[in-house]
């Protein structure tokens, strides 16, 4: 963990009526560190981030930003934070520049910074376009621009690319990647896209049901998975049942009957793959397609919870 912690979360709990949204979370984010809270919907990511943003108050536990709590230090914390909520619709009939000017006024910033931000988020051509006429990706870049207006030391982005197409998502990643290189801003990003966490963040916390399941750098998370490869295959035969792969199978195969697709993990591809081919043949089955890939965060999440990140 970095030497200068900018965000410290200690033993935080939060409930809404009967729902325990966050159950004893601890983590620290260092200066300049990009951290992802990765988990499926309902994992408690948004609640956690909203507590850091000061929008929600924890039931118990402590949240410090630059060593200060929200209760007594609102005036000091607000100026160093930039944030983007999960879903915000801005004023439809304001254009991009006017929207940024409005939010810039909350920080006492002038049009010079607004123009800078328009360049940073790549909305130069859309500066006079009404918000209502922007695409999903452009709106998200506008939201990101608003979050960056005050050159925040702490950037909190709640699912900034959810619902965006791959191109728009990559555009947001590129802006954040540049920010990482050029500034000392720390980032907490919530996402259920593993690629996003992998691409942008140097520390990842995997959450589910309000708890941390596993955390660390990508290397740390995959220590146990080193050298492992995932094999995904489909068969020419249709309607193959799960039971087919349960008796005397030398591998642990997860078979999806709906997709007619199987997944297994292999440690030594060159030795184990021929065995797998033999096994398939022995069952009277024929491979239709087969791909091998490295282990992903989604595979890790499945191994921890039995579910996909996007479930």
């Amino acid at each position, binding site marked *: 963990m970095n030497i200068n912690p900018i965000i410290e979360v200690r033993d935080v709990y939060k409930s809404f009526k009967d729902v325990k949204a966050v159950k004893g979370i601890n983590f620290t984010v260092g200066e300049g560190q990009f951290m992802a809270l990765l988990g499926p919907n309902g994992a408690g990511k948004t609640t956690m981030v909203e507590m850091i943003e000061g929008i929600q108050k924890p039931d118990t536990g402590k949240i410090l930003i630059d060593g200060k709590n929200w209760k007594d230090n609102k005036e000091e914390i607000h100026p160093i934070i930039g944030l983007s909520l999960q879903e915000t619709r801005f004023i439809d009939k304001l254009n991009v520049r006017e929207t940024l000017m409005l939010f810039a006024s*909350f920080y006492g910033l002038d049009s010079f910074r607004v123009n800078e931000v328009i360049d940073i988020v790549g909305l130069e051509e859309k500066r006079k376009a009404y918000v209502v006429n922007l695409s999903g990706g452009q709106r998200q870049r506008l939201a990101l621009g608003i979050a960056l207006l005050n050159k925040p030391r702490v950037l909190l982005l709640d699912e900034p690319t959810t619902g965006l197409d791959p191109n728009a998502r990559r555009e947001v990643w590129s802006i954040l990647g540049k920010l990482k290189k050029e500034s000392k801003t720390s980032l907490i990003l919530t996402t259920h896209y593993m690629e996003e966490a992998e691409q942008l963040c140097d520390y990842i916390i995997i959450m589910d049901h309000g708890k941390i399941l596993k955390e660390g750098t990508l290397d740390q998370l995959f220590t146990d998975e080193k050298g492992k490869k995932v094999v995904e295959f489909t068969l020419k035969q249709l309607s193959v049942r799960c039971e087919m792969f349960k008796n005397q199978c030398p591998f642990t195969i997860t078979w999806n009957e709906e997709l007619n697709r199987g997944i297994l993990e292999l440690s030594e591809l060159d030795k184990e793959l021929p065995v797998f081919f033999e096994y398939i043949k022995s069952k009277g089955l024929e491979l239709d397609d087969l791909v091998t890939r490295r282990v992903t965060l989604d595979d890790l999440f499945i191994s921890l919870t039995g579910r996909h990140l996007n479930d």
Partner: protein
Amino acid sequence: MTDIYRYKQLWQLIIAHVKEMVREPGVLFWGIIFPIFMSLGLGVAFTTQADTVRKVPIIETYSQSIIDSMLIKGGAIKGLMDKEGGTLYTLTIKNNKLGNSIFHFYKMDENEAMIALKRGIVNVILDQPDDKPRFRFDPSNPDAQLTYLKLTKIFKNSSHININENGDILPLTITGTRYIDFLIPGLLAMGIMMSTMWGLSYGMIEKRSKKLLRRMVATRMKKSYFLVSLITVRFAMNFIEAALLILFAWLVFHITIQGSITALFLVFIASNIAFSGLAVLISCRTAKTEIGNGLINVVVMPMMLLSGIFFSYHNYPNSLVPILQKLPLTLVADAMRSIFIEGAGVVQVIIPTLMLTVGGVTTFIIGMKFFRWY
């Protein structure tokens, strides 16, 4: 696409919309239950055969009263009570189907009668320049027409005098006595109410529903500035709307402001404060525009019906009138009418101005106490 498939799709869409509505209790209440309550309230108010009270001034310049004798012959009871020295006749026309019409006749001098007419307390003035009663009213006022028709019926039944339907009417066309003179200040008041209530309440609820309010507050926006800016813009819009309406009324109907411009401005500011406070109070919690619609209507509609914008609230039962006079819209409309038609100054409107201001500030404070920013 086969017919069955198409109908199935239609059916599923209907089911989805029904579920969407039924599963949102607030929407259900304001969309279904509230209109039932509303129709119940209005139904009771307008379908029960309540007595309609009409007040008619008789100008006391005649010596030999033909009107007096006609009224007595028609069944009027004389001297039931005295009102500021004037003798009062009361005449009741019974009608099981239409409801009873009760006429109160006052003796007034010309000046008193004109003030009562300008305030909407009366809509027909009776006098007797020769040997026949004469009816003075604005023919474009439908309520005055009804009073006239009922009165002529009484007189025709009670005497041999031939009431000439045209010749015995003296149309009131002098500025200040016409129906339009009564209507314009009321419309001005209603415009301020509608614009403020819908503009502010709906604006706040919509921003809350879009989570924009949450976003702005999370970005260090000063909450007080947000409200002050919204109210200032609404105030400016109301000012322009009111100025245009006054200009239009002057150009087309030759309506002028008889009283003090300062007084009018004070009432205008107080009315903005009053309705802004109410708007903040009713929009302080909900994030659903459907619920907002219902809440705004529950405040706005009764005032539109009861505050005497189109027809005088003096036609409602006497016991209700003091309550109706305290409604914010009534206070604004009455104060504006007194300035426009009667030439009132600051002193005459100071009480309604204070009542509106205090009411507005109080509702604003309560609204802010419960206001949901997140």
